[in-house]
């Protein structure tokens, strides 16, 4: 188990560094970070690429769980 803890810690540390680099370098991720910051995530390039993927799962969670009579 101790090995698992060490490994997970290392993976997380490396992932955080890699993630920061990707957000800095990848235009879509930069765009998504900005969109998240300004609260309009649905305009981001990443969200747009996912439009057709589980299209019923949307940010308006109330609408998502609303069942029409």
């Amino acid at each position, binding site marked *: 188990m101790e090995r698992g803890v060490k490994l997970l810690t290392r993976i997380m540390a490396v992932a955080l560094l890699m993630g920061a680099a990707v957000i800095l370098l990848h235009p879509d991720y930069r765009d998504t970070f900005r969109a998240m910051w300004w609260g309009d995530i649905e305009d981001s390039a*990443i969200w747009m690429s996912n439009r057709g993927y589980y299209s019923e799962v949307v940010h308006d969670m109330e609408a998502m769980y609303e069942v029409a009579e």
Partner: protein
Amino acid sequence: MKWQSKIIGGSYLYISGIVVAMLLPLDPAWLPLLRISAGLALGATACLLAWAMWQGAERPQPWMQWIWPLLALGAVLLGYTRYTSANTVPDMVVGEIRITADAREWRQTVPLTDTSRLRLVKEVEMDRDLQFRVVGELDARLAVQDDDGRHLMDADGRWKFRKARMPITSEVVTLSADDPVGTEYAVVQPFSRVTGIEWLETPTTAALRVYRMSNHIGSFVRPMRGQSPVTVLGRITSDPRVYDYQTVLMVTPAFIQFPANGPFYKVEGGDIQVTLNPRMEGYSQFAQTSAYGADVQIRGELTVARAESNPGGFNARQFMQNYNIYGLMRPFQPRGEPPPMTMIIPEGSESVRAGHPLVSFSLGLRDRILLLFKSTMPYPQSAFLGGVTLGLRYGLQGAQFPGEHDRGAWASRVGLGPSEAQIVADFRYSGVNHVLAVSGLHVTILTVMFVAIFSLLKFPKQVFVPFVIFALVVFAIITGARPSTLRAVIMNSLFLMTWGYLDKGLLSSVLIGVPVAAFLILLHNPLVVVDPSFTLSFGAILSLALITMPTHEILSTLRSNRFLVVLIFVGATTAIGIVHWALITTPLFIFPWLAFAVVVFQVAKRLEQQGWKLSDRFAFSGLPEGVSTFVAAQVAIQVGMMIPLSAYYFVRWPFAGAYANLIAIPLIGVVVQLGAIGGLLGLIPIVGPYITLLLNAANWIFASFFLWLAHVASLIFPYPFARRPRVIEIVVYYLFIAAFIWHKPLWKWIKGVCAKRQWNAPSAPAMFAVALAAIATVPLWVTPPRDTRPDGMHMTFFEVGYGSAILVESPGGQRILIDTGFVEHERGRRNQAERTILPYFSHAAIRRLDGLIVTSPLPERAAGAATLLEHMRINTLVLPPMMAGVEPGMTFDEFIGLFGPASHVAAAYPIERLEGMYHEWLGHPRWSQRAALVPAMQTRGPHLANRLSGRHMVTRAVGPSDVLFEEMVEDVPFRIEVLSPDPRPFTQHVIENHGLALRVVHGDVAVLIPGHLHYEGQYRLAHAWHEDQLRAQVLVVPHLGSANPTRQDRPARSHIERALNQYSAPLMDRAQTEWAIFQFGEPRGVLGEAGPTARNIADLTRQFYRARLGTDRVLSTDQDLAIMLHSDGRSVHMDTQSQRNRARGGEDDAVSDLSIGL
């Protein structure tokens, strides 16, 4: 430890009981007795165990010796009864009708329950017919609906009905004296009570057993479409499977109105799979997680999935029934009509009922994590992450490798060329598909992750173990609670408990966890015992647990020169497999190659002994322990699970898997952990989504690399077909695997036997071992082959949708395939050669074709040829004369010029159809990886590798009067005669009419195959030959029965009938046809907009043939499924896959065919 051995033993004995029930089924009437016996045996076992505990373990008593036999008896009987009761829907005996010289009586032994249908079974012979009516009453449930036609439900969630008591007298039931004993009859009216019998005609003696038919949903389904719709009231009991083109729901029905205006029956078991079209009004409310638990009213046809369409094919019906799905509905909403499926809200409530709170919580959590994935990772990597972390593998359907839509993507740059294969196909081909089926790998990754997180936070393990188990249960629900996931969750939970509270290690947890998990899963649903998700999952864990260590031990002996030799030979064999897979399966090559490897290995060893060696540190054992154990585990999984079970279930073996998984498995650990942590941390308000973005930005790299790995592996490595092993072969294989696992104690035992018997020769133990191995193989030789058939000629007309594929097996053993079916590329899953023909060859152990005849260049006949060339050894490829000039590199105009003047051909055919044909023959300019016939022909030249592996192929074009594959067996001749094309040019339908027409002759029997000839071609064929040269008892209907006699989209019925009478009838008459075989299926995928017209014409053509030959003499692959013809040289015998399915207890038994109603 004694308890542990009884738990383990009891679990395995329970599984044995299931296996016994599969092999030796009993009449379900024995079930009550068996259940009581099982209960008594297990109850007695429990009492004895309790007594033993009370007495104390240190004082063994004589009666304790009965514990094991009783446990064994109880467990086996329990397994037997669970499987038998799950596999059958027993009808209940409620009485009997008995007529003697003195009396006529109806004796009811059990009162009817609810709305009941009766089934009668004749028990004795009768001297006259028996006629009577059943008299009784029905307490009919009638609909209570609102103004919109929606059924009402009370506040407690109970469906509301109006009860109406009405007298019922059945229609006349007639039992013929000629019917054999055991014949079944149905009373078509339902009853709640039977009050008497109205006798109309009675024999001297008669005896009938009266059954109440179970109201299981399976008893209401009908096999064919076009039935009158029924109304089902039920509840959605699983998470909707949402595709971009449909949503699939599981509905547990409570009541069914049958027929449309009949009474409601209370359903007594079985679920329905409902598939919804996005165009249906109100579709969106069903295409989301919140639909789970909702009460629904559905109106539509209730059908059942097909059993095998072709011999050895996939049995979709059995697969679904293993998961309790007995009915299918595809509600259709006609224009202007209300939606056929609606949610029902209980009275006084604001919304529909929710499902189980834990399930609703889990699915809601999943949606929130999915939302974060969609926000922080681009498609298709997001779909991949959703698939491996949340079990949403259906979202990956249709996704393609990123960049493949753009010419000049990376693949072109490294010379691989773009591929149109979808990601799921990439995964399947590369052998990493298992990552999408959430299993032990994922659960173990998450277990380690949660334990690591809690350990980091310094929680004691006694405190956090329950939380981790709860998280695993939620994960199982989120991912659909499939057998593989359940197995892993149960095993990991047991491990956590023994580790957390008993300080036990991994091995003891696995030893007890595997059988207990299997027992619990099979106790819930014993039918999944042969389901791939169950057997593959347990096969994997048992391989890991049992085979890894002995494999590691053997590999660890490899060092220095020997290690190098093994590495070189594994690498070289892999390279040969990639370049020319057929060599690997060629005994003439592979045995000398292995012998060469052994010699080199021995030389290397000798050199080592003489001091000529590499460093001893250059060894398998020199690898880091984690790496060497991982490699041994991969070898163990390949040997213990992938090679035998992949061949058995999928008739293919992903060669790439052995290598791709070396990278894919560690990689998926990172992807799943980052995804899970990112998803969970993302739920923290405000900062959470930013953390998810950060983690998923990194995970995007890993996910992309995974997709890339699978894609490249799928392009480089072959995905060969493998012969499907017989069950007995798998049993013998696992005997040898068991001998390998326990080779040390086995060897010790062998030496002990030799010493005891005083076999003192040094080689005696080895010879004894060889003798034992030979004995183990005896079952292979004494059991009959899979398919025992009489001598003579066999023809199989495959069910390949709209297209043709016919296998001819001559009396002398020649195998000739005529046409190859259609390939639908756009959806990537309609390659009939890959789906139907090659799996049949694997099933029937056919590795070589003597001939492949392509009668027409049209895709419905020729498109699968390239795939067949890729996977089969074929001696001769026979083409129609118009294709003699086809060459690689031809332009489109040159290609269509083969059929006539290019401008004329271009004007006569839709351009899409011509382009499709060009791509099938010459290749697609964009999708260079797509198989095409002419490039495939180029690879079958007479070079050394092809000659060695038997892949050298001769191509020839034939014309009228040519005779092919002629032979004489026991003075009965066999040959295939070429009858057309007519040498005179045609002016219309030039491609169809210049195709081949064949006559397969075996003694006095002949089968006429006019290919795709249009009406003019049929007419000329009828008159170009003497009647004796055309004579054929069996005629395969030309042009798939769908030749359009006009240029109109919707030709008039009279035009079609005139063409049939004028052009098709002479061919039938002159050939003296007795049987007609239609090859037909849904034509829309092949013909596009012309599909419905083709269907209408085919319906008329079928009527025409039936009118002339009789209904029983016209067989059709869309209704009768595959058609099998046998000739003994004098007469023909026809058999159909549909008949075989019925004989195995399929859908079309007499009772279920009867309509039931008021």
